[in-house]
């Protein structure tokens, strides 16, 4: 069984001192409405965009 790690999960684990410079504010999180393959493809596309704009 695959369960997406959502913004809600992430928010629950961030400390109250969290700000925009913490990894938890920046990581790409899964869309629970999509399956694993679709989430993987989204992540891969986002990685390509980030790589092209920063490297």
């Amino acid at each position, binding site marked *: 069984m695959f369960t997406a790690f959502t913004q809600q999960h992430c928010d629950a684990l961030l400390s109250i001192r969290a700000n925009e*410079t913490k990894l938890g504010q920046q990581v790409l999180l899964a869309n629970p409405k999509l399956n694993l393959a679709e989430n993987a493809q989204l992540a891969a596309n986002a990685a390509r965009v980030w790589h092209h704009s920063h490297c």
Partner: protein
Amino acid sequence: MSARANFGRGGASETLHACMAQFLNLQSNRFLHGNQCAIIGQISLTTQPDSTTSVDALRQATAELDQLVIDATSQLFQAGLEPIVIGGGHNNAYGLLMAIKAYTGLPVAAVNLDPHSDFRLREGRHSGNGFSYACSQWCVRPLPYFGAARAKK
């Protein structure tokens, strides 16, 4: 579960949230920016074994979990991602190795950093025999491992 199938202590399934609580609160930096990472999700069995589950049933459940790990990580490799699997027992090494072999068609050169070699008998899947099962399927080339504990006398 898989550690209990190896007559060890359970609890490794809690690792993901413990690890995420630390990781997500790290400061982004020039070596690791949050936008370089995606947290996809969690893999688990639909029915979790309980404290009364027999060792044989735990080993069967570990084999079922192997297949879930193989299926999930194969999809990540297909998408061009580099998966990091957190938590569970070291049984997950087997699923990862099998998924890489399925994706590349080649045996994998793996480095195992562990006090144990995870090369125990193929007596049913558990946390201590991921590499022996992987080697039996020509999945792993001879592997170095670091941190091995000296055998007790």
